[in-house]
Structure formats: structure tokens, C-alpha cells
């Protein structure tokens, strides 16, 4: 009995203890007293670096980027840059919301697949391997798009694209095959729009792999390829054999001597002099993606293979590669052999062609040649094309002499649309803008291009098929006029330079909303450029993490030594 009593006693003590403990824990905090939000004090972000800290050969552009007030950003450059606005208008430099950049820095998958911008369309769904659906953005600051829904599809087969267009299942297609031009023009339900040849197709060699380390071998290839024959047979009208790397319609593009004439005898003599009288065996790499500069990839590859064998006795094996892998390997300079690649203008300036490819930081042709990039650095600082010409003569002649690659053609291409599509165009920069097109009153516009985008985070992409998709959703400070190459204000209402073009003050557009509902202000601009430029920043996370455009056009800050 006494045992039972002592147990009850113990239990009682425990209960009392529990009550005391419960009383001691703090009470829930009182509901917050509603306070009036403090008057918006704007704390501007800034990105500052030392111009001397850039690695040698870097584009070394920015000294600082500063948000001086909510709608003003000041870009201070290390040197004058006459192409500043042209570069700034390139869609890779579109503005992302600061909060989103911070939130997705640790989540690259979301960053690559569901970007947030300010453009007329917002991403609805990306069915991998099938299509991307965009819907119109209700709070868009500019002219709302004509079609509520925009669908991107793709097919690598030009015949399949034309068939879909003829069947009416798509409203517009990119790059109909040259053989289909006449078919489309003869069809009253379709329209063909030719795109100016603002591009170049080249046959590249990486000079870190023998025998391409020998300049005589490269010159032999330059002489031994009948480029006119390739253009005559495989390219549509409006194309031409390349006399220089840059098309002649771009100022200073064609400064200096024209490319070599086809001369198989001299080519064989050069190859023998280099120590390969019987030729050698190598590979030709390519990706089977049709671009404006290269309409029939596999056919041209076989033609080059046949020419190399016939003219130089070079036995080349053809190696098709997956698009993303090909771009990654070729631009890193890892392909031992020839590779077929090209370039479409991003902005109509000679620096976009030459500085990107032959700059000191680009390993895609192997070790860069100082004879070329030193002239380019000097030429890029001069605004007046006539004054800059001697440097481009020097650069182009050095390219001709050193042959990092053989420029083959400037390819004419086209887009085709159903006849009732108004506002249809073929943009010289391949950035067709679908918000400006009206698919004959239908509420869905279906576009079929050549390949699936690699990712939708275009700050770290170079692939034109990806850029076009991003351009429907994202906007930079300036942009290009629809279907043209002139700069027009977009998220900035104006960007004004100082006298020597080294300080640019941009006034931003007010009342612009991002797709996630947040407001656009100067800090978003600084955050975006920090993300792209500052390799030490936590925001600097992308697809390949090469940040090619940020690096080549502006120069990365805090770039880790290789």
C-alpha cells in the first residue's frame, strides 16, 4: 500500500513540475504592430574593379557599374568604346531581377529552364524534345503581342519544316532548304522572306594539334579548297564566297587583301614543303544543325572531304557530333582536325566578328596570334571607321597570312511564313521577334526552327537557336529595331556617353515589371552585370560557365587564372 502511495506522490510532483515548466516558457510574441513602411530609401548596388587587374588580352571594359539612383545606371569604362550601345543591345545582356538571380544562384536547374524577364512573352512550359510554349505577359510595358500564345517547335530536317508549313500546322519556319525556295514562292498560301547574308561559314583548324601547328599546312588548305564551287553548288541565291572573314556590308569588314584564289598546284607544293607530300589523315567535325551560314551541313562536309582528298590528298574522316558537345569542344579548342562552324552577326560591327574569334582569350583555333589581336584591340577603341581602317587592314592581312581558319561563304538564307501572317520578317541578326507578327487573327503563333534551345538562360549561351527563344522573353537596356540592325531603347530610355565615350549614363524606363511581378530598377541592372562579369560572385552560375559573350565583349572580372 505504502508503495502505491509513494507512486501517487511522485506522480503528483511530476505534474506540478510540468505545470511550473509550462508557465516558464515564453508566451507567443504579440502580433506585430502595423507600422507605416519607411519612405523608400534606395540603396544602389555597384560593381567596381581595377582596370589594371584584368588579365592580359582581356577585353577589359568596365571600371565600374553603379546604380546612382533608382532609375539611373552609370557605366564607367577603362577606355572609350564606340560600339557600347551596339553591344549593350545584344540579347545576351538582358536584365534579370536581382532577387531571382540571388534565389537561383544555388539552383542552376531552375535558372536554366525557367528564366524571368521583362519581355512580351513569359515561359509557360518547356516539353523537352518537343516544344516550348510562351504566353503573353499581361503587365508588359510595351506594345502587347498580337498572339496570346507563342509556340516554338524544331526539326533538323528542312523538308519536315516545309511540310509542316504547307500543312498549316506551323505559321513560320526558319531556313527552308535551298531546293524549296521555288516551291514556297510558287505557293499562294506561303511567303518567302530572304535574310541578308550577315554571317560567315568557316573551316577551322586548331593550331595546337599537329600538323595544323605548321602555318604552311594551314596555308595549303586555304589554297586547296575551291570555295566558289561550294557556294555555287550548295548555297541559295544571295550567298557569296567569302573574300574576308567579316561580310563586306559591315564597315571595315573587307579592309585588307582578299582571300587566296583556288590553286591546287600551289597548295600541294606548300604541303610538300611542310613535309607532307603524300597528305595526311585527319577528321572533319560538324554538328548536323542547319544555320543561315550553312544550309546543307552533311552535304558540304562530304564536299569538303572530297576536295581535301582530290586537291591535297588529305584523307579526312567525317565525324558528326551532338550540337551542345560540338560547340563546347570546338570553342574550347579540343577538336583534333577540321571543324565546320560559322557565325551570325549579333550586332552589326566588325568587332563582333573579329574580336570574338581572334581575340587573345579565345582558344577555338588553338593559340591566338598576337599579330591579329593586337591590331584588333587598337582598332576597337576608335569610333570613326575611316580612322580605324589601318588596324583592320593589318588584322585581316594577318588572318590571311596565318590562316587560323578558312572563311568559306557568307550564306544567304530565308524564313517562310503562311501568307496571312502580317509583320513577318527575316531578321539580319536572326532574332525574329514574334510579338510583332500577327498570325492572321489566330491566337496562337507556331514557329518551327532548326534545333531545340540548349538552355533558356542565354547570358551563358552562344547558340543562336537558344538566343532566339530567350529574345521573346528577355530584354536588354537597348535592343535592335524589329527586323533591322539599328539600336533602339528598350529597358533604358536613353544611354548618353561623355565626350570621349568612356562613361555612359543610362536612364531606365519606369513602371516596368518582371514576369514574377517585381519592379525593374537600377539594382537589377547592376546585379545582372555582376552575375555575368564577376567570376568571384556567388551569382556567376550558368550552363557552361564559359560566359563567352561577357568575356569576349566586356572582359570577366576576377577571372581565375588557368
Amino acid at each position, binding site marked *: 500500500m505504502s508503495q502505491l502511495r509513494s507512486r501517487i506522490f511522485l506522480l503528483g510532483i511530476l505534474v506540478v513540475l510540468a505545470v511550473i515548466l509550462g508557465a516558464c516558457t515564453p508566451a507567443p510574441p504579440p502580433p506585430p504592430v502595423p507600422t507605416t513602411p519607411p519612405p523608400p530609401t534606395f540603396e544602389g548596388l555597384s560593381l567596381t574593379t581595377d582596370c589594371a587587374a584584368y588579365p592580359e588580352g582581356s577585353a577589359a571594359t568596365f571600371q565600374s557599374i553603379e546604380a546612382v539612383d533608382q532609375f539611373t545606371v552609370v557605366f564607367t569604362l577603362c577606355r572609350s568604346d564606340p560600339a557600347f550601345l551596339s553591344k549593350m543591345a545584344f540579347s545576351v545582356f538582358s536584365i534579370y531581377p536581382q532577387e531571382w538571380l540571388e534565389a537561383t544562384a544555388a539552383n542552376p536547374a531552375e535558372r536554366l529552364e525557367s528564366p524571368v524577364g521583362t519581355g512580351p512573352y513569359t515561359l509557360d512550359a518547356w516539353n523537352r524534345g518537343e516544344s516550348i510554349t510562351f504566353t503573353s505577359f499581361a503587365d508588359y510595358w510595351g506594345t502587347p503581342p498580337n498572339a496570346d500564345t507563342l509556340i516554338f517547335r524544331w526539326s533538323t*530536317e*528542312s*523538308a*519536315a519544316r516545309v*511540310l509542316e508549313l504547307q500543312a498549316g500546322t506551323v505559321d513560320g519556319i526558319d531556313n527552308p*532548304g535551298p*531546293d*524549296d525556295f521555288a*516551291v514556297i514562292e510558287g505557293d499562294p498560301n506561303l511567303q518567302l522572306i530572304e535574310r541578308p547574308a550577315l554571317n560567315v561559314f568557316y573551316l577551322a583548324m586548331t593550331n595546337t594539334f599537329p600538323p595544323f601547328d605548321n602555318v604552311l599546312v594551314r596555308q595549303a588548305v586555304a589554297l586547296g579548297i575551291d570555295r566558289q*564551287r561550294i557556294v555555287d*553548288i*550548295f548555297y541559295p541565291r544571295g550567298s557569296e564566297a567569302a573574300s574576308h572573314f567579316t561580310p563586306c556590308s559591315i564597315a571595315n569588314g573587307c579592309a585588307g587583301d582578299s582571300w587566296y584564289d583556288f590553286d591546287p598546284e600551289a597548295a600541294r607544293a606548300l604541303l610538300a614543303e611542310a613535309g607532307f607530300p603524300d597528305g595526311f589523315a585527319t577528321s572533319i567535325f560538324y554538328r*548536323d544543325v542547319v544555320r543561315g551560314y550553312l544550309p*546543307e551541313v*552533311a*552535304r558540304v*562536309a*562530304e*564536299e569538303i*572531304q*572530297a576536295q581535301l582528298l*582530290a586537291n591535297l590528298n588529305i584523307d579526312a*574522316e*567525317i565525324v*558528326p557530333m551532338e550540337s551542345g558537345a560540338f560547340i563546347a569542344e570546338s570553342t574550347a579548342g579540343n577538336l583534333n582536325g577540321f571543324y565546320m562552324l560559322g557565325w551570325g552577326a549579333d550586332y552589326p560591327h566588325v568587332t563582333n566578328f573579329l574580336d570574338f574569334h581572334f581575340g587573345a582569350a579565345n582558344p577555338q583555333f588553338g593559340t591566338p596570334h598576337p599579330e591579329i589581336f593586337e591590331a584588333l584591340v587598337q582598332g576597337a577603341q576608335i569610333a570613326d571607321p575611316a580612322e580605324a581602317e589601318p588596324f583592320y587592314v593589318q588584322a585581316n592581312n594577318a588572318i590571311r597570312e596565318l590562316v587560323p581558319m578558312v572563311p568559306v561563304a557568307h550564306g544567304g538564307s530565308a524564313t517562310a511564313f503562311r501568307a496571312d501572317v502580317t509583320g513577318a520578317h527575316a531578321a539580319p541578326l536572326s532574332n525574329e521577334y514574334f510579338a510583332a507578327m500577327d498570325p492572321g487573327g489566330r491566337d496562337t503563333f507556331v514557329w518551327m526552327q532548326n534545333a531545340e534551345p540548349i538552355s533558356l538562360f542565354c547570358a551563358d549561351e552562344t547558340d543562336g537557336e537558344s538566343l532566339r527563344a530567350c529574345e521573346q522573353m528577355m530584354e536588354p537596356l537597348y535592343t535592335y529595331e524589329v527586323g533591322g540592325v539599328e539600336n533602339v531603347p528598350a529597358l533604358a530610355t536613353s544611354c548618353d556617353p561623355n565626350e570621349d565615350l568612356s562613361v555612359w549614363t543610362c536612364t531606365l524606363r519606369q513602371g516596368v515589371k518582371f514576369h514574377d511581378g517585381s519592379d525593374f530598377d537600377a539594382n537589377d541592372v547592376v546585379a545582372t552585370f555582376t552575375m555575368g562579369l564577376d567570376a568571384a560572385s556567388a551569382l556567376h552560375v550558368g550552363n557552361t560557365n564559359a560566359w563567352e559573350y561577357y568575356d569576349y565583349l566586356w572582359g570577366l572580372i576576377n577571372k581565375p587564372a588557368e
Partner: protein
Amino acid sequence: MSAVRTQEALPATWVEERAPRSTRRQFVEGLFRKRSAVVGMVMLGSLIFLAIFADVIAPYDPIQVLIGIEEVARRAPPCIHLLGCPADQPQHIFGIDGNVRDLFSRVVYGSRFSLFIGFSTVGFAIIIGGLLGAVAGFAGGRSDNLIMRVMDVLLAFPALLLAIAIVAVLGPGLINALLAIGIVSIPVYARVMRASVLSAKEMDYVQAATAVGASPTRILFVHILPNSVTPIIVQGTLGIATAILEAAALSFLGLGAQPPTPEWGSMLGTERNQVFTAPHLVFFPGLAIMLTVLAFNLLGDGLRDALDPRLRIVRT
């Protein structure tokens, strides 16, 4: 047919004495009596003729680009002088391909590759598969179980998919494609061989050989195998057709023969975009594949009918 009549006229006892040759004669007779088999043989004969004399028959080198040699347009349709094509234009009876080469010459040379693919892959598969099957059937027990379960695993994959996977590992190319197709066809022959070895093993003459103390190797290779190859031959003939189709599929996908090799499947694949603008570029290689596969199938069917004793009994 006269031989048959002579045979009928002979005394019955004589025919009985010559019984073994009569079996062979019966087989040839059965094969020739089947019209589809004869058609298959004729088609196959002409194909082999085409392959052997390709240099003589083809008017052009199959990888010769005709630019600068003749005035021809890329992907020009067929030009046949007999059918009204102007005589001043060069004759190309199948037309010109996407790289300005003579399509007829390419199709003719393609027959070499297809026959080579068919015979080499099936030969490879028969040797490996036949041996595995024979060992499994003859030895029985644990080795039978092991071999046949591995074969079951191989069979569980769709053949083309497995071939694609193998080529993806080995790298694209004609030889690798052949190897891949050879490997995926092994289990079929292993199974057929095992089944016929199992039945032959119980025959009296095998028991007799065992009784007189012949070694297992001798029994397998001298007594059992020669009496078990019939089903393999039939299966092999039909298998050649499948192998040619699979090789064409691999080449179509860009995993088999590499350009500029004139292989039918790759010719189809490279010009698939031109189905509507230049249909001759896919029609003729496609037709060639179809006819070749048909030839082997007809012959295979005929062989099966002629060689299968059960079918023969029903007919006689």
C-alpha cells in the same frame, strides 16, 4: 527433270542402295519446284553478279564528284537516252545525288557492301552462336543453363536498340556496325543449334558412337554437328535479310557506313530531306534494299520447305 524420270525407270532395289544421294536430289528438286525460291535465287544471282562486276557495270566511280567533268545539275532527275532524254546530255539512269555523283554507280557499288554485310554478320553469328548452342545442348547441366540464360538476356533487348547501344560504345563505322549486328544475332543461332543438337543427341548412331568409346569432342563434331546444321542454314538465309535491313537502319541513323561509302542505308539517310524535291535519291537505294531483302526471304522460305523433313513428308 529428265534425271528424275530416269530414276523412276530404275529397278527399285537400285534406288534403295543409292538412298543418301536421293535425299540431296530430293532437296534440290524440292527447292526448284518452289517457284518463289527460284525467283529468289535468280534475284540473288543477279545481285551477286552486280557486286562482282560492279567496276564493269557502273559507268562512273561511285565517289567521283562530277563537277567540272560533266555539265550536270545537283540532284538532277534520271536522264535516260532511250526514254527521250536529249542525246547531248550525259546519261545518268538513276539521276545525280546531292554531292553531284552518279546515283546508278553508287547503287551498283552498294550491292557489294550489302552482300558483304549480310554474309559476314551472319557468318560471324553462326560460328559463335552455333558453337555456343552446340556446347550448351551437348554438355547440358550447368554450362547449358549459363550459356542459354546469357542468350536470353541478349534476346530480351530489341535487336536494333542493342545494336545502336553497341555502336555507341564502339564508335560509328561500318566494321563496328557489322560487329554489333553480328552480336545481336548470336542468340537466335545458339537457340536453333541447341534445339537440334538436343534432338540429335538421342539418335541411335550417337548412342552407338558412345558405346564404342568415341570421345565427346569427336561425337559432337563428327556425329552430331553435321546432322544439326540444316535448321541453321535456313535460319541463316533468312537472317541475312534481317542483317542487311539492320545495317541499312544503322547507316541511315549515321552509325554505320560513313560517307562517302556508297552504302544504301546511308544514301537513304543523307537524302531523306529530299523525299519531295528529288524523290529518285531515296527511291532507288530504297528499292535496292527492298529487292535484296526480298531475294533472301524468298530463298530462305524455299530452303526451309525443301530442307524440313516434316514438310517434305506431308507433300510426298
